[in-house]
């Protein structure tokens, strides 16, 4: 075999000086980042027009790792920040990569309102069912009865169904994949990058260290096997029924519609007002 004399094909999309990343062995975040840069590569995106924004949490480091304009905001606020960026320069492709806790617990309000406004930002959510960076506490997507450091006797909260939430809030593109469906994920991300409106992809991501370990899935491969066994690919099925259980994980695309974005409508109005104005 050939020894690795040369650099990784996709290294140019990463901040080499920050590699290797901080993520644990078997963590799905790396796969998501990998899939994301694959998509950039396949689309030959203009990197000068790309802004990656992330919040707080393990996946929050993703912004720093992608070698484009990037910003690492406070906990829960990436979408609000991204809204400012997108409106300030609609030509920019603004991608928010963050976690389930950041986007749907502390940041939930910003998510639903950005979706409602149909701001043309793209959100990729790594859903690992817990707060990994702080050591595995219960989160808005933690499955019932799951053991976390703050639900030592099993979770009694009802988790969010993120794709249903996104669809209900008005997202124009909604998909869910697991890190095992990395090919589909890449295709979805490519689609995401080529769309106008508020778009959302949930990526079910293995977190063996702080979640799996406490829930009978010690290693990354064990969690991936769960994804493999349980996943069923549905085509534009009802997101309300897109369950995530031990037996069944519904993945696929759920919504793909076009509607005018906030920035489009805003600039239309402005043009009209300026015409009348002078």
């Amino acid at each position, binding site marked *: 075999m050939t020894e690795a004399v040369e650099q990784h094909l996709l290294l140019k999309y990463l901040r080499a000086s920050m590699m290797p990343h901080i993520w644990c062995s078997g963590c799905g975040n790396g796969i998501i980042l990998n899939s994301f840069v694959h998509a950039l590569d396949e689309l030959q995106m203009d990197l000068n027009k790309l*802004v990656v924004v992330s919040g707080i949490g393990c996946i929050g480091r993703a912004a*720093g790792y992608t070698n484009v304009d990037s910003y690492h905001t406070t906990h829960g*606020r990436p979408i609000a920040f991204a*809204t*400012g960026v997108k*409106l*300030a320069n609609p*030509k920019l492709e603004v991608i928010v990569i963050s976690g389930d806790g950041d986007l749907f617990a502390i940041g939930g309000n910003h998510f639903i309102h950005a979706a409602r406004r149909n701001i043309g930002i793209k959100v990729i959510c790594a859903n690992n069912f817990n707060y990994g960076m702080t050591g595995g506490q219960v989160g808005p997507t933690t499955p019932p009865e799951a053991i976390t450091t703050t639900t030592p006797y099993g979770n009694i909260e009802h988790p969010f169904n993120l794709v249903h939430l996104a669809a209900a809030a008005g997202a124009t593109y909604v998909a869910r994949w697991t890190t095992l469906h990395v090919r589909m994920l890449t295709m979805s991300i490519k689609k995401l990058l080529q769309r106008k409106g508020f778009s959302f992809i949930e990526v079910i991501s293995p977190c063996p260290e702080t979640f799996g370990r406490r829930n009978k899935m010690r290693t990354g491969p064990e969690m991936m096997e769960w994804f493999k066994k349980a996943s069923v690919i549905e085509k534009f099925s009802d997101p309300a029924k897109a369950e995530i259980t031990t037996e069944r994980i519904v993945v696929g695309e759920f919504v793909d519609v076009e509607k005018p974005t906030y920035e489009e409508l805003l600039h239309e109005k402005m043009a009209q007002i*300026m015409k009348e104005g002078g």
Partner: protein
Amino acid sequence: MAWEKAVLTGAHFMSGDIACAEGAIAAGCRFFAGYPITPATEIAEHIAARMPKIGGIYIQMEDEIASIAAIIGASYTGLKAMTATSGPGFSLMQENIGLAAMTETPCVIVDVMRGGPSTGQPTLPGQQDVMQAKWGSHGDYEIIALAPSSVQEMFNLTIEAFNLSETYRVPTIVMADEVVAHMWEKIVIPPAEEINVVNRKKPNTPPQKYLPFMPDDDLVPPMACFGEGYHFHATGLTHDEHGHPQTQSSEVQTKLVRRLCDKIRKNADKIIRVEEKMLEDADIVVVAYGIVARASLSAVRKAREKGIKAGLLRLVTLWPFPEKHVAKAAERAKAIIVPEMNCGQMVREVERAAKETPVFHLSKLGEEPHTPMEILEFIRRSQQ
């Protein structure tokens, strides 16, 4: 549209909030994100009406946290950005004011102060947020805060605030109060060319050489913006010149945090503005800011008529605190009076600067601001 055209040159009769909005526009602000709150709402309303006409962006966010986050984003994308709020909203913004300070984001926050704490008295004036403005967010940092005391100053100081925040890459706060904000007065907006507008320093290095947080001699790093091809990273984490997180190094932490403070402290003389009235021979010095300074001035005048050597030191800049000016005034003064619409906030800074000179605090909460009579009375008494 060129910003000159956006400037409403001429004499106008308008409220402080509207003047503030016009000031922002005149300063080149083209992005406003806000959330309705008395007594700052009219700023948003006026901007909402004006921005579309001049190609600027107005967006009403879901809350104040979102508003400040959005203007930080807009600023990083190259627009001059502002938000306006009052006490409750100002509290919500604190964490991201810290982020703005940490990521050295030029942006302006208007805090129209009302009676607190909590929901307090939304429709009555207050000066209770002045310490929060300085210390509200966690960790060590410096910001700049200005206190307008007239509608004209609502206009002028908003421009000033933008110039300072652009110059020093620091969040700058206009500490207005309900009276100044809702008061209608005549103001004069000068011709555009006579308005001094400062824009942030741009890097002159090629992208591959650019270090986003490497300061020049003035301790302020040149600022590239998203979409300009610099491919830089900014983070709220402690970071080195590259903007790369350094969460373990005390060296980087010390270097960064000191600089963030020093770039303001060391430039304090350039930043600070005060107004001195009849101080040359003043025995009694009134130190005031905002609307209270106006009552103080007429009180000082009345005192002079009555033969009392009183003088006024009006703080235009609240932060960094005009320490030297207070000290100087304190040298020959027998007493210093600090009337404030709070239980005693800036008075502490004055005491610190006044050394031995006795400092009396004239506190007033709720209802109307101090009347000249109240202050005059206090001046008289303070003679004994």
